[in-house]
């Protein structure tokens, strides 16, 4: 316990042990593991800064502890206990042993409501993972204090105050997730298949494109100067880069931002050269614009636009209709509202479900992804996907197409790689999109469930091909949770540039470090999995697309019977495996015995 003094130095002592709420301690414990210790030493020098931050939290926590608080959760017995607020958690603990307690990250809280009946206050906490809990707090002042603290702590502006910067892992990190999916390693796989591509460092200081990683794959015969010119012609500097190489026929999928043609039809020879360089002689390619033609036309007025046939004669453009983020956010809010509607009217439920349009978005996104996959696999054509910025709908399409085409993306590790490549490194602005969820009262600005829709689409494919994915639904739910609130740094910030600036890989733990441990992998593994090397074509007929109950109805009904069924399924398979290995060993034993004693072989 040699670290205790250090720990005290920047945490407890700075506040004065007397004034420290006892409930802060559990969070401190996690820093007393071997890994935490090193981290602490490493960060010792910044102790002053950290203590200042803790001080800041302490100012926000007017009432750190209230006794006699009653917690109501759906389908669980109520718990009476002590409510504690720490800098990052809301904790409710009963005095009894073995009672499950509540630990809630403030960053998971989407909105709160308070109500008073006499001096008994009630706070309804609505979380980003769509859970709703209720806390009955005796004492009006306590209740008001708690409410205002939660409000303040759940809407901290500064990224560096977020929990991942304070969290120290209690597990042994076998493999640092921050280094698990580096572009240079991914490129090695590509090199083994083709020599037509190179890894460009043109963006190594993020000056060409803010939202791209330092290393991107581009056609070999296109030099960095050309790339720089193309970047000026594409929205956000997002020049076309390689997204996926289809080994079977050598076709590729690229993604980019919209071309900045504007109203007077600006063109860029380098852009044309770049994308034509990806076509085989005599072959045509497809440009999938995720917007309708009308939206794309309107974009011209703001300097954007689309590729015209005249300038891109070897490409055929197809417009699809994936909605933009503010519409998606409204859709999520309506859907969640419908799921929480307690009235028992079937008509009302179905019309609200329909009015939310959520399932329409799922269908539209999946259809577009299937289209991209189809062009590549069946038409034998290369594809370029873009919308406006190329950071939302574009990524939904390119990543889902890979799930369909590439069996590797259906493994746990492969899927992590996909999320890393096509979402995190590709510059999906997670922090902006996932700042609020379905309950927030703030007017949405940049928020949108783009990633959640992607996960929903993956779930639809998983449900249609339950034996072809190495991971189970729980992995998708886990990613949804962590995208919105997490102790890990993976989904913080909006781009690699921002992550680098915040030194996330040095200062926070990667989600993948936690997931890629045997005990966690086991929890996420699909017991039905049998590797399937084929392309899987999901049905996108409305009858085949269901509401993702695992997310949207998760807190609205008891999962007991479904859990039982899942356990039974796992048991049937594990028992079979165990029996198999036992029978195999007996077979061997028998064979040995029979060769030892040739007499017995004759019947």
């Amino acid at each position, binding site marked *: 316990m040699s670290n205790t003094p250090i720990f005290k130095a920047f945490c407890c002592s700075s506040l004065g042990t007397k004034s420290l709420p006892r409930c802060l301690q559990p969070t401190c414990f996690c820093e007393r593991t071997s890994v935490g210790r090193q981290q602490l030493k490493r960060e010792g020098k910044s102790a002053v800064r950290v203590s200042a931050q803790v001080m800041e939290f302490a100012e926000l926590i007017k009432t750190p502890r209230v006794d006699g608080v009653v917690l109501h959760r759906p389908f669980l017995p109520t718990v009476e206990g002590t409510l504690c607020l720490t800098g990052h958690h809301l904790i409710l603990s009963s005095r009894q042993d073995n009672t499950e307690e509540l630990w809630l990250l403030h960053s998971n809280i989407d909105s709160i409501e308070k109500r008073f009946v006499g001096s008994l206050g009630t706070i309804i906490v609505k979380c980003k*993972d769509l859970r709703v809990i209720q806390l009955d707090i005796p004492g009006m002042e306590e209740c008001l204090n708690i409410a205002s603290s939660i409000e303040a702590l759940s809407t901290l502006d500064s990224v560096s105050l977020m929990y991942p910067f304070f969290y120290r892992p209690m597990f042994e990190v076998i493999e640092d997730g921050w280094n698990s999916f580096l572009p240079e390693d991914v490129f090695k796989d590509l090199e083994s298949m083709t020599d037509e591509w190179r890894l460009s460092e043109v963006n190594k200081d993020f000056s060409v494109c803010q939202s791209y990683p330092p290393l991107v794959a581009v056609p070999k015969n296109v030099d960095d100067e050309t790339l720089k010119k193309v970047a000026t012609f594409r929205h956000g500097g997002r020049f076309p880069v390689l997204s996926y190489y289809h080994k079977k026929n050598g076709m590729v999928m690229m993604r980019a931002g919209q071309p900045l043609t504007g109203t007077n039809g600006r063109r860029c020879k380098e852009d044309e050269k770049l994308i034509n360089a990806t076509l085989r002689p005599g072959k045509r390619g497809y440009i999938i614009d995720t917007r309708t033609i009308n939206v794309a036309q309107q974009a011209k007025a703001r300097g954007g636009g689309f590729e015209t046939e005249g300038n891109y004669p070897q490409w055929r453009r197809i417009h699809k209709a994936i909605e933009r983020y503010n519409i998606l956010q409204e859709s999520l809010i309506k859907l969640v509202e419908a799921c929480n509607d307690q009235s028992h009217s079937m008509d009302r439920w179905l019309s609200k479900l329909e009015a939310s349009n959520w399932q329409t978005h799922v269908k539209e996104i999946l259809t577009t992804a299937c289209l991209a996959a189809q062009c590549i696999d069946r038409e034998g054509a290369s594809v370029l996907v873009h919308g406006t910025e190329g950071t939302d709908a574009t990524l939904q399409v390119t990543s889902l197409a890979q799930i369909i085409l590439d069996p590797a993306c259906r493994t746990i590790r492969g899927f992590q790689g996909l999320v890393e490549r096509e979402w995190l490194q590709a510059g999906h602005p997670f922090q902006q999109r996932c700042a609020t969820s379905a309950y927030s009262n703030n007017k949405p600005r940049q928020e949108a469930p783009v990633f959640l829709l992607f996960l929903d689409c993956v779930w639809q494919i998983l449900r249609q091909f339950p034996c072809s994915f190495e991971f189970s639904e729980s992995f998708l739910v886990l990613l949804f949770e962590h995208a919105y609130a997490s102790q890990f740094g993976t989904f913080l910030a909006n781009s690699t540039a921002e992550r680098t600036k915040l030194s996330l890989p040095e200062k926070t733990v990667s989600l993948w470090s936690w997931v890629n441990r045997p005990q966690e992998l086991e929890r996420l*593994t699909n017991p039905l999995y049998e590797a399937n090397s084929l392309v899987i074509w999901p049905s996108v007929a409305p009858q085949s697309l269901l509401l993702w109950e695992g997310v949207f109805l998760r807190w609205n009904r008891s999962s007991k019977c479904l859990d039982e069924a899942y356990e039974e399924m796992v048991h049937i398979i594990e028992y079979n495996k165990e029996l198999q290995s036992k029978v195999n060993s007996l077979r061997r034993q028998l064979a040995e015995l029979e060769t030892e004693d040739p007499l017995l072989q004759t019947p």
Partner: protein
Amino acid sequence: MEHIRTPKVENVRLLDRSTGQRKVSVGTLYLSATHTIFVENNPETRKETWVLHSMVSSVERPPTIPAGSQLILRCKDFRVYQILIPQERDCMDVHASLVRLSRPEKYSELYCMSFNPNVNKEEREDSWKLIDLMADYKRMGVPNNLWVSTAANSEYRVCDTYPSELFVPKSATPAIIVGSSRFRSRGRFPALSYFHQDTLAAVCRCSQPLSGFSGRCQEDEMMLQAVMKSNPGSEYIYVVDTRPKLNAMANRAAGKGYENEDHYTNIKLQFIGIENIHVMRSSQQKIIDVGEMRAPSMTDFLWGLENSGWLKHIKAVLDAGVFIARAVADEGVSVLVHCSDGWDRTAQACSVASILLDPFYRTLKGLMVLIERDWVSFGHKFSHRYAHLDGDPKEVSPVIDQFLECVWQLSEQFPCAFEFNERFLIAIHTQVYSCQYGTFLCNCQKERRDIRLHERSHSVWPQLWKDRAEYTNPLYKAEQSQSQGILRPNTTPYCFKMWKGLYNHMEKSTPPRQSPSDYLSTVKEETQQLEEELINHQERIAALMGKPITWEKIEVPRRRTSHLGQRHCGPDPPSTYTHPITSPTQDNGHALSSEPVNQEAQTKDPALSLPLGLHTHLKSQDPDDLSACSDLESGVADLSSRSSSGVDEGKDPNETASPPPDWKSKGNH
């Protein structure tokens, strides 16, 4: 035979729309006395399609097109066949023949009267004995000192649509029974449907009283009193009128209606609001249309689903069952159920309640018994509802379809509670309509006796029982909690789904889906073989070594994983959430530091470390058998190869993700 105008037509094109078939097959069409048979010309496959005449619900003849004349066969199992016949003359003959053949006028024309599954007389007689209702009453503890058998209806004199053997309250004298029956529509007096041994409460059924606005009947009032008295300790009974209250009130004008609570002492009247057969008929037509929609948008689909009202009706039936089950199991109060005639909604509500109350009815045998009791024996009008004979189309209604769907909806909520799978429910649905067996013929027991049905046809149950391996749910475990006791379903609207297996044959087959249930059945089958092999090997090893057999039992501890439950309640690793904090009031903070905070998470069940690599050998040890594994997927590969060769005719752009060649024309140029 006299109805067949042309027994054979060549060069016919058939499109089985309902299986999502996209390619038209060319072949020869034959008409037999019982079937329409289509044999493909393709010498390699010679695929045969057999359609039973009694399964055909309508034959349409759309306008002739240049390629020939068309026929559309719509079947009662919601399959649709499109037929193209080169000569108009032939088409008219086939049409006229099929119209007549699909609408038999006499029972003797039905398939079950000529169908012989190759068994002798004794076997046929035995087939009718497989399901023994008296044995089931005995199983529930009847007769006893509360409920007794009555001979009142032994010759169907009191009520011709009731069975001859019935159970009534012990205190109900023949005079009360007869008096009560005179006051009930069609003479259907209150009789026992299910007796719940745990609470001694019972589910009884009858038809509406002939009360009009003010009529009353002393015997009927005594009858209800007797029902209450047969449940010792209870002070009232529920009378569940499964109709909407308005309908029940309207019936008073016709001299019928519902029980006046002022006349009957100690009853509580409850209306449920299941709509009548006409509403249900048109609702089902709408949901069939939804299933048949070509490339609907999500809005079309959801709007169609809502507009059909179908799920609302399914919910109403399930709600009725839930109300009855709660009264019987939780309150210990007996329930008397009726609707108008007491043979449609009453049958639905009583049988759903039995499913919820008694795990036996969730087994294969149990469901057969239940259908035999509440539907066949209690006089549900199968012949009219499922149009076995040419008759009034207004009498047709999907009453039992709704019961089967309620069971399906329950099986979605309770995946381990039912011994049977979806296929069993669909098989029963098909048999109800097909008339291949005699089980579902006629409208009541008396009618069956009069036409000597048991001597002229066979029972369907032994056939279904024989094929039970195919109908078994691999997740069913008799000892699991949901397989025991009362089922308490959630009936919030979002718990109901469209039953794709029944209404959407198309989506079932394109592209081939992987079914976890079939996969698990295969695994279980293999497990059984392995268990035998294990014993075998152990015996041989013991013999070789000259030692007594060491029986090793393979036990795999159950993994307790909350799949998506609430145990993992947030983004922190679960261990931090579940480890209890020592009471914060303890003053000595340092004492806590020695506690291994995360130890719980480290201790790992050894059973969990099974090598996952074994999985690939699951199907078989034999490497040749790997083909069987990939079979599951081969259809997918097939599909992709088919379309890369460019033959995608008739394919719908939105039905599957695989678009026809023209689908890129949506691009704007």
